[in-house]
């Protein structure tokens, strides 16, 4: 660990000013990912701006049905919140499938969105990594790839995004509210995380001097059913091999609304637009689910060592949709 300065933010605007004035600053909220990175020297900030005591910790439902979640709302509290359990079971299940109870008690909504990849090479200073050290190379390519991407990967980085919550938020068309020097900016979650491209060091479109203050969920879709299915090697406390967040609304025997996102397959939570298009207006049959998987996965490319992910995400999607209509 390299010594750093520490400041406790008094309010969000002043935290943004401090961020802007200190290019070597990082924001500390729950610390469940950042503190690991400090210990491993993956993160070497000059200044930590602790926002964990800012009062961004409420879940509010507005008149139009929008739910606004403060950036500091803890994952445990959000998963247990009646508005979330009732209206967004997909999100509650995604949250509860993440990490461990102890970590969920600390991890925040804003911080969860900014989790960095668990790629073993990213976390190991002794191996090259374009995400940690741009231009040094990607050690995962040709290496240990069990957790790596099959969709949207680049030749510079094949890492996956580790969050469960973000997959649900992507499927739900949630919005990130970021406070910057010029006020609030609203970023749809599906556009918030980036594909690696040739800048794998940038996980999101958030600017360096912007602070996530809230996440907004659009009103509940009446009549829709949703869930989150996470597939992992052990029953708890493991990152997703793959995951599926799905919401369906069926009327008169056909699919009227559908929203699907995948976790564990790409550098970002993967909105399965191809599968959605395939399903919209179709009858909710196994054949249709299978066709939707084909549509989405025609572009999937496995690495040596993670070939299993293509049939796995396929089967998981079909099983998740089947469960929703059963």
């Amino acid at each position, binding site marked *: *660990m*390299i*010594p750093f300065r520490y400041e406790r933010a008094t309010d969000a605007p002043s935290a943004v000013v401090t961020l802007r004035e200190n290019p070597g600053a990082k924001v500390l909220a729950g610390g469940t990912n950042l503190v690991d990175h400090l210990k491993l*020297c993956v993160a070497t900030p000059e200044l930590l701006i602790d926002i964990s005591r800012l009062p961004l910790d409420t879940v509010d439902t507005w008149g139009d049905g929008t739910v606004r979640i403060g950036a500091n709302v803890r994952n445990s509290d959000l998963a247990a919140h009646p508005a979330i359990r009732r209206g967004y079971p997909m999100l509650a299940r995604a949250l509860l499938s993440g990490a*461990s109870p102890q970590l969920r008690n600390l991890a925040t909504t804003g911080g969860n969105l900014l989790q960095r990849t*668990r790629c*073993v*090479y990213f*976390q*190991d200073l*002794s*191996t090259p990594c374009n995400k940690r050290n741009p231009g040094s190379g990607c*050690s995962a390519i*040709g*290496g*240990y790839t069990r957790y790596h991407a099959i969709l949207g990967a680049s030749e510079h980085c094949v890492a996956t995004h580790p969050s469960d919550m973000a997959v649900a938020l992507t499927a739900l068309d949630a919005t990130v509210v970021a406070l910057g020097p010029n006020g609030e900016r609203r970023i749809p979650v599906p556009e918030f995380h980036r594909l690696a491209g040739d800048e794998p060091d940038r996980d999101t479109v958030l600017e360096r001097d912007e602070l996530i203050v809230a996440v907004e969920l659009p009103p509940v879709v009446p009549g829709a059913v949703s869930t989150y299915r996470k*597939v*992992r*090697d*052990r*029953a*708890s*406390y*493991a*990152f997703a*091999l793959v995951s599926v967040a799905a919401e369906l609304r069926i009327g008169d025997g056909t699919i009227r609304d559908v929203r699907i996102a995948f976790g564990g397959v790409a550098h970002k939570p993967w909105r399965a637009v191809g599968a959605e298009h395939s399903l919209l207006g179709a009858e909710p049959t*196994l054949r249709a689910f*299978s066709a939707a998987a084909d549509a989405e996965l025609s572009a999937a490319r496995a690495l040596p060592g993670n070939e*299993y992910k293509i*049939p*796995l995400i396929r*089967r*998981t999607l*079909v*099983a998740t949709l*089947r469960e929703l209509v059963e």
Partner: protein
Amino acid sequence: MNAIGTSLPRIDGQAKVTGTARYAYEHPVADPVHLFPITAEVARGRVTHMETEGAEALPGVLLVLTPDNAPRLADTSDGDLTILQTTDVSYRGQLIGAVVAETPEIARQAAGLVSVRYDEQDHDTGFRVDHPQAYRPESVNGGYATTTDAGDTESLFARPADASVDHWYSTPEEHNNPMEPHAVIALWDSTEPLLTMYDSTQSTHGVVSALAPVLGLERDQMRVIAPHVGGGFGSKGSPHSHDVLAAMAAMRLPGRPVKFAVTRRHMFAFVGYRARTASHVRIAADHRGHITALAHDAFAQTARVKEYVEQAAVPARSMYASPNRHTDHHAVPLDVPVPYWMRAPGEAPGMFAGEVAMDELAAECGIDPIELRVRNEPLSDPETGKPWSSRRVLDCLHEGARRFGWDTRSASPASRREGNSLIGIGVAGAAYPHMVMPGTEVSIGFGDNGRYSVRTGAADIGTGAWTTLTLIAADALGCPPEQIALEIGDSALPNATVAGGSSGTSSWGSAIVTAAHQFRARFGDDPPPGAELTAHAPDNPDLEKYTISSFGAHFVEVRVDVDTGEIRIPRMLGVFSVGRVINPRTVRSQLIGGMIFGVSMALHEESVRDPRFGHVVTHDLAEYHIPVHADIAEIDATWLDDTDEHATPMGSRGAGEIGIVGSAAAVVNAIYNATGVRVRDLPVRLDDLLTGLPAQ
């Protein structure tokens, strides 16, 4: 007196749950300093330069150790312990230096400021059975012969058999990872001179006898203290290079206790691990399932810097009757750290292979797996011809079958489904040799306070030795346990052998019983205060006359998700024969712990060594999986009512390792029963099952 057999709660339990039991790093010492190691970032080559000025300039840094300035070791014959004597790098992660500073943070930061240049050479960490340098070692771990032959297996295999098995089975590298990583505080008193080490070890005297010659000290110039140890699983069975590094630093900083806590990542680098193994198992049998020939050829990775060969084929020598038998071992030398003991070395990987092969033979013959074992039960030790002291593996199998509901198992695989789960049941047998190490001494005294002091250097690594030895002493001295004041965990106490190889309680307990008998003979049952004597157990001739082993049977139910192949274990039972059970509470804990290790071995643990870099890249507990609570549902261990008078004076046998032996095979066999997919390479993951799942 009947203290033995009572479930006395751990006498160190309250201290542990209240945080007052002191582990190695926690001993209060005056004016400590902190060490952070520098490790090699190439897998083979030479250090050409270490730039230490930046580290030395950091305020608070007291010492930067490098091969240039490190103390010279007196004995460099042990390649695991010999560090900083040359600039050679023999494996990635090897200790090549250290920073010692006033705080752990400064030490760590300064270590990062030491830049190292290497002359890097080609390395090879890729295990393969056709490795051109593979060789037969002189002997294998445990001192066993490398090769054994009886009858003529090859000509049997050359002829067609009614039923046969011919497969390869493999286990990956696995790292012990006790909850308490290795840690040491080393203090050099140059006036005595005396090196004191508070060390997380399975053997206080073992550390002295291994390190004193390396450091050029007499044995009485070292003292090793370890009252409480947070697990070892073999890796703390002897000192490793981190102990040497701490001692070197301490000798450079007399009077300053040097604290060195090995990080979780470094647990994957230099404190031992289970080598990769591959086992070629061949069995031929007649149509009734009687084995006519059995061969087990084991391959294991070893380090170039020191040989350690996992004795994976040894269990096959005695487990089943067969007129023709062949076992052999091959070592594959690589540029890797030195493998070492881990959770039933030899038996755990060897019986995984053997017990899965038996399940395959049962399927091949169309015979129930338990019945197959009945038909091949050896009446005497097939290897030596000696009688068994007590071999009740069939009783374990039958009792387990009754309790577990074996009769509900469908003999045809992939035929039982509930909801979205494919359900299967599997069984495996288990055996682990009974070992009593010679050399433990015990002193018994009677104090003014009316209590007996019972003293020996044994280490309680979390298994319950504090409690178990108290029970043994109470019965042997004919007094209630409260009258025993046990002192263990210090090399200043009489010599004790290692807490390893399931030998601790047997070895120490035998010595306690001997000393107690002598004490009572000399001083009677109402001894005068101040009465004291020291004794060691006489050789037990029965250990030579009989083959003595602990036995067991594992029963596992698995559920495999029909869509994703996710594997979960709702139910597991182990039935064991371990002689007389001294403390049911702690024995049950150990057996269940071993069974969970079996689940872990079957489904989770895998140290992935990246051949390009040469180190384990899954080097933390987020990437290196062990089961969590949610993975372990209904699990139970029980045992037969047993006494083995040949094994120890207590009638007990070793119980530490039998819990893991065979358990991974039972999981794999259950997965086969559930899915029809036979997996022979551990760990089994959903990846292995996907293609065998039903279409959606």
